[in-house]
């Protein structure tokens, strides 16, 4: 009986102690991240190499799975020509993979030419946000490779997001489709400014909000939206996406609609980090 009472008491005290510690952490995280920074650095030395390994393993497995799936499809369709088709698909798969990679690299290269005035570092995406509310990415390059906070991140023709946190061997990228992300944009040919705002409620459609156009601006579906010259963090002229469904708001002062991002956020494997920072006057 006494033992039971004692064990209850101790676990209660532990609970109170841990609660106080957590509340202290929460309180300090409002003001500074100097408490979490050393912990993040220490943990990242263990976790990031593992994440890289997992990532490579995952890519390898999904490659193999794709192979198996495609082969079984062909088997069902052409049972009589099984052996012949098998050999051909195998070869075909290899070629397909190579062309896929070629396409991807070509796209990256094109993008590289497109924004050639900026210097860039390539990086692999090795992780996603730990919850389902946000969709931040972890990349495998950090301050050791010259990455800094507020650097812009692009991929396959468009803007991915911005670096919000940097460790020595990793960086965290906040994507433009995330709920609390705001990017100042403009129409490429008329320089009319607008705000691109991520929204988790649009996650199924893959679109984001586009708003704050002046009421006298004509916006057509498919207009290219690029990062604006007035943004203080985003470099000018990076393609964000294409406007669609822009209509007047009920206040008759502004117009808003949707934007289809230029980047496919569902299978993002490689990104380019622009190592130039936008210099502001202040």
């Amino acid at each position: 009986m006494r033992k039971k009472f004692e064990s209850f008491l101790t676990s209660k005290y532990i609970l109170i102690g841990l609660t106080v510690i957590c509340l202290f952490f929460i309180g300090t995280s409002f003001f500074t991240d100097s408490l979490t920074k050393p912990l993040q650095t220490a943990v990242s030395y263990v976790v990031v190499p593992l994440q890289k390994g997992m990532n490579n393993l995952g890519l390898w497995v999904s490659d193999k799975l794709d192979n198996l799936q495609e082969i079984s499809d062909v088997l069902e369709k052409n049972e009589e020509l099984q052996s012949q088709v098998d050999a051909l698909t195998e070869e075909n798969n290899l070629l397909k993979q190579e062309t896929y990679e070629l396409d991807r690299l070509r796209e990256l290269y094109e993008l590289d030419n497109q924004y050639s005035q900026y210097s860039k570092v390539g990086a692999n995406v090795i992780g996603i946000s730990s919850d389902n509310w946000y969709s931040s990415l972890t990349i495998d390059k950090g301050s050791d490779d010259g990455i800094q906070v507020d650097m812009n991140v692009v991929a396959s023709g468009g803007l991915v997001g911005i670096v919000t946190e940097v460790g020595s061997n990793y960086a965290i990228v906040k994507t433009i489709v995330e709920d609390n992300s705001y990017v100042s944009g403009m129409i490429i040919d008329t320089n009319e400014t607008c705000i691109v705002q991520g929204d988790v409620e649009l996650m199924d459609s893959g679109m984001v909000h586009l708003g704050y156009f002046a009421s006298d601006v004509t916006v057509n579906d498919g207009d290219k939206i690029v990062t604006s010259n007035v943004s203080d963090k985003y470099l000018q002229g990076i393609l964000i996406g294409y406007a669609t469904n822009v209509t007047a708001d009920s206040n008759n002062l502004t117009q808003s609609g949707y934007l289809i991002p230029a980047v496919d956020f569902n299978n993002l494997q490689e990104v380019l980090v622009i190592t130039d920072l936008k210099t502001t006057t202040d």
Partner: protein
Amino acid sequence: MKRKVCELVLIVIFYLLQVSVGRVIAVANIVPNFLIILPIIFGFLKGRNEGMFVGFFAGVMYDLYFSSLFGFTALCFVYIGYYAGFFYEKYEKYEILIPMAMVLVFDFVYEFLCYIGNFLLHNRLNAGFFISRIIIPEVVYTCLCTLILYKLLAYINDKLDTVKTKKRGVNFDEGSI
């Protein structure tokens, strides 16, 4: 000591499952919440103190890189581990429905708290969408993962226990000879 180290390793593995493998196994962009399984199962199998210990470190891992409010998840997971510990030794270990029911309830409560903090307070009142599109799928997916992982975790837990008793048994035998 060995138990604590093993639990920390498990936390790291589950964290990796969540952030790296999660990308591959996500269904409709929903990744199961692997880390919440740990405090519940260890609380259920080993008692309140163990649940709180695992919950604290799992929560810290969860918060470390992607949360603006460091410590919130740790706080939630500590309480989850504590309350899961109330069911310690109340049920047989093969009663898999008890931990699953706990995952169902605790994950829902935790995610709903997240919704309140992140969205409701920012005037995002469309609770129906958030519950039906994000919270419920995640809860169900996490429950299914619990079903798969429970046996493995129970086995690891037993292994960590038997190591101790075996040693004691050997000593006892030597004494009697």
